Structure formats: C-alpha cells, structure tokens
C-alpha cells in the first residue's frame, strides 16, 4: 500500500514537471515557425529578385522548401507538446475530480448522469481548450511583435505600419467584442434550455409513442429547434463582427504595406522617403505581411474551444474543492481496512449517534431541522415518501454530503471517525471478480472463513451452494443476481467492514414479501450488536425499528 502511494506520488510529480517543462518549449517552437516563415518569404523574395536579374533560381527554391519544412516541424512540435501537456494536465485533473465525485464529500448530491457529464464531457472540454487554444495564446501576443522585429531591418516603415494597425484593431476588437459578447452569452445561455428540449424529447420517445403523441410533440420539437436556429443566427450576426474586424485589419495591413512599398520603389511617395527600398527586401516585407495577423487569426479559429473550456471550468468549480469536512477525509488507503477501528487507538470508540439541528437545504430538497439520538446498538428508521431527502440525510451522516447547518457526532460529542459508518446500498458496487472478493471489498484482510460465515449469516447460502461458493464469478453488472441477493451482498459487506454504524438505503424496496421479511429479520438481529439506521418507507420495516424518524 505504501509503495503504491509513493509510486503514485512520484508519478504525479514527474507529470507536473513534464507539463511545466514541455509548456515552456512551446514559445520556442513558435519562434522556429516564424523562422520558417522568414526563410519562405526570403526564398520567394530572392526568387523574384533572381528572375529580375536573370540569376540562378536553385538557391531561392531551396530556401522556400527549407522554410516550409521548418514550419512543418514547428507546428508538429507545438501540437505534440500541446497534446502531451494537455493530456498530462487532464489526467491529474481527472484523477482529482473523479476521486471527489466518486468518493469525496460533495456540496450537494448529483445524479450519476450529471456526474458522468462533469467527469467526462466537461473534463474533455477543458482538455480541448488546453490542446487547441492555450498553445496559440502566447504566439498571438509574441508572434506579431517578432514578425515586426524581423521586418524592421528590411523596412522599418513597414514594421511601423503593421504595428500601427494594431491600435485601431485593438479598439475595434474592444468595441465589437465586449458589448456583443455579453449579449451573446446571455442569449446563448437562454438558448441552452431550448436546445435541451430536443434531447429530452428524444430520450422520452417510448413514452411519447405510447401515448400516440408523436405528431404533437414533433410539432413542438420543430418549433423549438427552429427557434434555436433563428435566435442563434441573430446572435452570430454580432458575434462575427469581431472576426470581421480582425479580417479587415489583416487585409488592410497587407494592402498598406504593398502600397507603401510600391510607391516607395517608384519614388512617388507624397512625402520625403524615410528609407531607401530595393526589390528583394521590399518583396520580403510583403511576403511577411500576412504573418503579422496570422497568430491572431489562428487564435480566433480556436476561440470556440476556449469558450467551451471556460464554461466547463465554471461548471466544475463547485466540485473543485472539497466542502469543509469532518471524518471522511481524502485519505486514500487508511480507512479501507475494516479493522481500522480496533487498530487505531485514536478517536473514542463509537458510543451511539447524536444528530442535532441537522438541516439540508438544496434546490429541490429541504430536510430538517432534525434531532435524534441512537444507541450504540440500535435500529432506527428514517421514514418519508420517495424524494423527500432520506438518502441525502444518510449521505450527510456518512460524511459524504455537507449539511447546510447542524451537527452530527458521537453521543459523547466527538466527531465521527472517518471509518465509523458502513453503507448498505440498494444496488451494491460490484466489481469484476469473485463473489468473495466483492463481499470483502471493505475488509480486504478478512479470511475466507470469516467471509463465508458472514455470507451464510445474511442468507447468501443458497446462492453460494447453487453457483460455486465464494469463487463464484461476478461481472460488474451483477448478471444473474436478484434484487434480494444484491441487498444481501451489500449487507454482508457492511457487516464485514466491522464498522459500528450501518446506514441502509431502502433495504426492502421492490422486494417480494418473503425476501423483505428475511431482510427485516436480519436487520433486527444485527441491531443487537451494531447501530443501524435505515431509510425506508416500508411500514413493516418501520414497525420493526425501535425508533421512527419521520422526515
């Protein structure tokens, strides 16, 4: 376990160094790209010069080819580094985020679909931004200046013209950008809901077909998608203005450079010539002119990725930091051992549960204030209809959900240890492996005899006999296991974990009467040695409990 932690740490450290180091190489690669552009422009210019003076063309052609090769190498290098560093950063971010979403303490409970959306889609959107937008950003700042610097020895006036267009360009971008962007963002957020309608209706097709509502809903979908298109186009009308500004100044700088150089070469400038131009340097300047705005045009092309990445970052922000914790901290290995309670001399032994003025208040959910006490061996039922917040209350007691206010402690008033509570789920986590491995997930050091004894105790005997004992193979979908058997697996796991407090989420829901009666009997029996809190709306289970806490 320790070795693994060290390895993980080192891996993370190397990753970090690599990301920082590799990113530092990106500006260098962009300089190589500009060097390639310079060679290419020089090749073209000296080629024109050679044609004019009837000189050999081989060398200019070679410059041209060298230039494009250099550019090819540079862009591939930038991309390679960007991919590696974006993915390295993404792996670190993902590891963190996944840990938090799957095993950490959250500010509110989220559905598994939403969790997957955050963990996969949003994380990928940020990676795309790092990959496509971030590496260009430095070039957009430095690139034009370097191009102006390279052009200056050939014609400082042309360099000044290029830099000069930056001023009205920046003003134009500010004008076209800010106001319209704000409006667009507001508008697009409102459009999100409308475009969600299509997704929702496609998801509910079986229901829509069942009620024969195809035509009616179809009309609604058409109206909504049409509206989305219509309003999006209205937004784009202004949103594309900033691109037009960029396009205009990039064209203008080429035109101005060409006209200046032409007139200067003709000797027809309407003002005294500030410098003496000849064909090759002038042509070089012209060939370099498109390069000045190129980095910014590249940046604009990747702007969509930036917006998506930032939106994703915002969506992830509430999950970026763990809410203030008690108990359940981020210790990755320590709490896994079921015997940790007896090993640690640390916190006082569990003497019962004390809940005081517990309030959970999230959108769509309001629980409490709740006050109750449980003995160290007890059976209590948290009751109330589906959706009222029973599972959320259990999650708060388990330390997985930050309550809005109130306290959860042992009866002596000390905070619960991180490994005080076991959780028996409706559908337990199943990993590909044997049944024995799955039962002992929370107690890896349990012996086969111990596992077998607990399995028999929770009534898994018949399954074991039928399907090959503890070595019975299990896939992660738990194929071939009934609802009742799943329930028993999660209870066996909770018992094996040797934790003093067992939280059971709907242990009898959707079970037939015989299975439910069996589970209730088992819970009653367990209540003589553990503190058990069940969330249920099953009257039989509520009757069996020593205490009912109605939400």
């Amino acid at each position: 376990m320790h070795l693994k932690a060290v390895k993980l740490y080192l891996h993370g450290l190397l990753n970090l160094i690599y990301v920082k180091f590799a990113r530092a190489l990106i500006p260098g690669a962009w300089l190589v790209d500009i060097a390639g552009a310079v060679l290419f422009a020089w090749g073209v210019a000296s080629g024109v010069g050679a044609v004019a003076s009837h000189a050999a063309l081989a060398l200019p052609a070679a410059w041209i080819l060298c230039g494009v090769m250099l550019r090819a190498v540079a862009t591939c290098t930038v991309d390679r580094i960007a991919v590696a560093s974006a993915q390295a950063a993404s792996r670190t971010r993902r590891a963190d985020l996944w840990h938090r979403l799957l095993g950490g303490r959250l500010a509110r409970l989220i559905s598994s679909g939403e969790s997957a959306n955050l963990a996969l889609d949003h994380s990928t959107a940020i990676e795309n931004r790092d990959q496509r937008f971030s590496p260009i950003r430095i070039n957009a700042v430095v690139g034009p200046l370097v191009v102006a610097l390279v052009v200056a020895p050939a014609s400082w006036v042309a360099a000044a013209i290029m830099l000069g267009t930056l001023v009205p360009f920046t003003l134009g971008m500010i004008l076209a950008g800010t106001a319209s962007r704000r409006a667009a963002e507001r508008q697009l957020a409102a459009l999100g809901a409308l475009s969600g309608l299509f997704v929702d209706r496609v998801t509910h097709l079986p229901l829509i077909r069942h009620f024969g509502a195809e035509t009616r809903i179809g009309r609604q979908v058409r109206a909504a998608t049409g509206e989305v298109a219509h309003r999006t186009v209205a937004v784009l009308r202004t949103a594309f203005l900033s691109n037009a500004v960029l396009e205009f100044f990039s064209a203008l700088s080429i035109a101005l450079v060409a006209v200046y150089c032409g007139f200067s070469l003709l000797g027809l400038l309407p003002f005294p010539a500030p410098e003496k131009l000849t064909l090759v340097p002038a042509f070089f300047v012209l060939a370099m002119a498109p390069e000045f705005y190129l980095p910014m045009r590249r940046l604009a092309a990747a702007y969509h990725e930036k917006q998506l990445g930032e939106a994703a970052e915002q969506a992830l922000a509430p999950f970026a930091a763990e809410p203030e914790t008690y108990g359940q901290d981020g210790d990755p290995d320590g709490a896994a051992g079921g015997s940790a309670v007896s090993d640690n001399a640390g916190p006082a032994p569990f003497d019962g549960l004390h809940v005081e003025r517990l309030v959970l208040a999230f959108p769509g959910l309001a629980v409490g204030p709740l006050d109750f006490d449980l003995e160290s061996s007890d059976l209590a039922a948290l009751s109330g209809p589906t959706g009222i917040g029973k599972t959320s209350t259990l999650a708060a007691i388990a330390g997985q959900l930050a309550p809005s206010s109130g306290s959860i402690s042992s009866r002596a008033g000390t905070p619960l240890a991180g490994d005080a509570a076991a959780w028996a789920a409706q559908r337990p986590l199943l990993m590909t492996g044997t049944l024995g491995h799955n039962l002992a997930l929370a107690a890896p050091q349990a012996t086969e005899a111990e596992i077998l004894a607990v399995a028999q105790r929770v009534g898994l005997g018949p399954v074991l006999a039928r399907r090959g004992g503890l070595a019975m193979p299990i896939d992660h979908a738990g194929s071939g296991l009934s609802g009742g058997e799943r329930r028993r697996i999660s209870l066996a796991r909770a018992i094996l974990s040797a934790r003093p407090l067992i939280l059971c989420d709907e242990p009898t829901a959707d079970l037939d009467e015989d299975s439910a009666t069996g589970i209730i009997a088992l819970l009653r029996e367990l209540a003589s040695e553990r503190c058990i809190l069940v969330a249920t709306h099953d009257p039989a289970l509520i009757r069996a409990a020593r205490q009912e806490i109605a939400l």
Partner: protein
Amino acid sequence: MIPTHAATLPTTARPALLATAGLARRRLAYASLCAGLAAIAAIGLLALSGWFLTAAALAGSAGVATAMGFNYLIPSAAIRLLAIVRTLSRYGERLLSHKVALEGMADLRGSLFDKLAAQDSRTAPDTSPGEASNRLIDDVEALEDLVIRQPARHAAAVSALVSLVLVAFGGWRALLFLAAMMAGLPFLFRRISERLTRTPAEAAAAALGDLRKGYVELASARAEIAAYSLADQAIAQLEPSASAFDKARADLFRAEALQGALLSIYGGLCVAGVLLLARESAPMVALAMLATASAVEAMGGLSRSLLRRAALEAGLRRIASLNALDAALQEPVSAAAAPLAFGTHHVPTGARLAITGPSGSGKTRVLLALAGMQQPVADLSMDATPLASLPAWRLNSQFALSPQDAPMLIGTVADNLRLARSGVTEAQMWEALKVAQLDQRIARSEAGLDTPVSEGGGVLSGGERKRLSLARALLAERPWLLLDEPSEGLDAATEAALVESLRRWLDRTGTGLVLVSHRKAPLTLCGETIDVTDLA
C-alpha cells in the same frame, strides 16, 4: 479507388442528408458565392500586391520617366478594394453558412424526430435511450459542423481555379505543373485523412462509450465507494478505457497536425515549382508565386474538412440510416376494449387484474410489453393474437401506462398531462389530478398547471411525480390502465384515499386495470391475480 464499402457510403449519403435538411445547393449558393469571392479577394490581394511591388521596383529602377509613366492608380486602388471585399465576403460567408447550417439542421432534427417517433418502441434503434439519443445529438452537431465548412470546400475549388488563371501569366510550364499539383491535392489528402484518422476516431468513440458506461455504474454506487474509500479501486477499473480514450484522442490530434504540416510542405513544393518553371517577367513570376501560396493555404479548408469527414464518417452513416427510416405514422385510434389473455388465463374487458411474483421475476416487463415498449417475454395476447405480432399502434390504442419511474418531459405539469392525448382541457386536467390526489398540491403551487417539472427534481417530489404520471395515464382514456407501483412513496392515509378515488374512477369509466404493486392497499382494487412465474 477507395476499396471499402464503408468509405464510399457517406459520399452518397451526404447529398441525400443535406437535401433532407432542406439544404439543396441553392440555399448554400450564397454562402459559397461569398466564400468564393473571399478566396478570389484573398488571392488577388496578395498576387496583385506582389505584381505591383515588383513592377514598381523595375519601373523605379528604370528611371524617373518610366516611373512617372507607370499606371499606379488602378493597381493601388484595386489592392484597397480587394482588402475590403475580402473582409465583407468573409463575414458574409461565415454568417450565411452558419445560417444555412443552423436552419437546415433544425429541419433535420425535426424530421429525424418524426422518423424516430414513427418507429415501434419494441424494435426502434433508440431502445437504449441515454446512449443512443446522446449519440444522435452528437452526430447531428457534427453534421452541422460539416455543413458550415461546406462553402470553404467550394472556396478551395475556386482558389485552385483562380490560382491557375493567375499562374498562367507565369507561362504554360508553371501552369501545367500547378494544375497537376492542385488536381492531386484532394485525392492525396483524402487518402491521408482516411489512413490517419479513421481508426483513432472510431477508437475514441468506442472508448468514450465504454468509459461513460463504466463511470455511470460507479457513480450510481457512489455512497458505498465513499463510505469504504474504494475510489482508488473503482477508478482503476476505468483505467483501461481511459487510457484507450486518451491515446485515440492524441492520435487524432497528431493526425490533424501532421496533415497541416504536410499541406504546408505541399504548398512549398508548389511555390518552388512555379518559381523554377515560370518563364516570364519578374512581376508575373511574383504574381504566380504569391497566388500559388495563398491558394494552397485556402485549400487548407478543404483538407481540414476532409479530416473531419473521415473522423465523422461513422456518425454520418448512423444519421443516414436513421434518415432512411420510414416515417409513416399510424396514430392510435380510440378503439373498443379488447380482451386479454395471460398464458391460458383469459381476462375479459374491464377486468381488474393484479400481477404478482417475487421481485425480479418480470412483473414490470409484462406491463412494458402490454404498453408496446418492450418485446414480451411472457405468453401474452390481446384479441386472441400474440402481443408480439400486434402492431404498436394497436397496443397504444388499448393501454395507458403509468411506469414505475414516472418519467416526465421537461416542461410544465400541463405539458406532461397534454401528452396523454390531443384536446385535453384544463377542466379535464384538474379532474384527473383530483383522482390522483394531486389537485390540492398543484393548486397550492403558485404556477398551478404551469408548475415546472424537470428531469432531476423540480418542485415535485418523487411521490408527487408518480401521481402526476397516474393522472396522465387516466387522461389518455384508453380501455386498459397499466399501473406499476402507483402508491410507492405515499403515507398510508394518502394511499387509502388514492385507492378509493381510483376505485370510483374505474367503476365510473369501466376501464380495465392491470396492476403491479407490492403494497396491500392497491391490490384490493383487483378482482383476480396472476403469478408472473406461471407465464414464463
């Protein structure tokens, strides 16, 4: 040329798709016109600048007289004009192509929806709702992106032609050379795209699918993972698909960069070739070289769209196959009640029947089969015909289901009630809500029937959604009501009231009932029971 069947399919499927989306070439024509104009202006700007500059240098060095005789007004004005044309036409191209794509895709979404809606739920291609619908949405977005890029493809062709016209000023050798290079580019880059991107694009999609499935499974076991600190082990399970996903994406990105690099080298070869082969004056060679350089750059749009096409091929194929579905819709009609048979057990119209059996024995499946949502596994028939051989619309005319998970459309209470049938009045809604014991709750809510209902919560609790779903089934006025755990999550008093009002409603309307419930109270509605294990 391209041997595989898969590779040739989308090329033929694409025009059909665009046509369905109302995207006849005519609608894209203006966007393409702008794109072409922008391409001409961009090439013209650079080429003309090069010619002007070189000619000016030669005239300038030939002496003051020649310089004075040089007509500089037209070229310098043309250069400025081209700069403006380039800006305006680019803006027009962007806006118009987005407009056409957005509007066309809105139509396509509508028509895909109609076609999917006309399918039988038991055999429809969207039977696993989450994944299939997500894929459909991604695919349509990808197609939208392709349509937006369509004018850039036309612009690439225009650029190639314009550059050839301009290079002709550099002599026939250069012209022939460039014509060959330009003609070869699309074929070469299509091959490169196919080779480089097909495999990683498909691998990335597959890995993401696996990853999502695995992740959702873990996320639904979150409480246990958190309680026992199993996150490391759990995440390790995802590692293979996460690595595969990362690798495929990295390959895809690198392929894109490589293609860009190859294009830039190709452009260099073209320019160098034109330089070596041109046999004309310096201004004409300058014009030819700069035209070539900027035309190859414009071809970048084509090469990028080829790259995306290769990556999106699977998605385009999926949309094409959905779009080929038959949209003929048979709406359910109000029909006389039909008798049912469960195995050998015959159930007359208007009967009330409970289906019992241990959990996991398939009670819900029986209801879903009757509702036409799943293939029957049990021996069920209606009107003496096995369920499997009845068309879905016949089943939909007979049954109204309130499913166990009470799915709700995003919208309002009224939206969800209106789903039941056309022409539902407000009075009827309130009446159904009253039977479902939900009228007071909705009346208390400020928005009344306009109270929002959403996927994961909204203001209604789980039990309330369940009763809303019941009210919806009542409103459908079908001869048979199918209820799956209708009183789940209710306290005893509400449950008793609900059962009583349901009894009165059933008595009054003569509607038949097939019920699945593990609670005692609703079972008292039923005159007979059937054990589902006897049906297998």
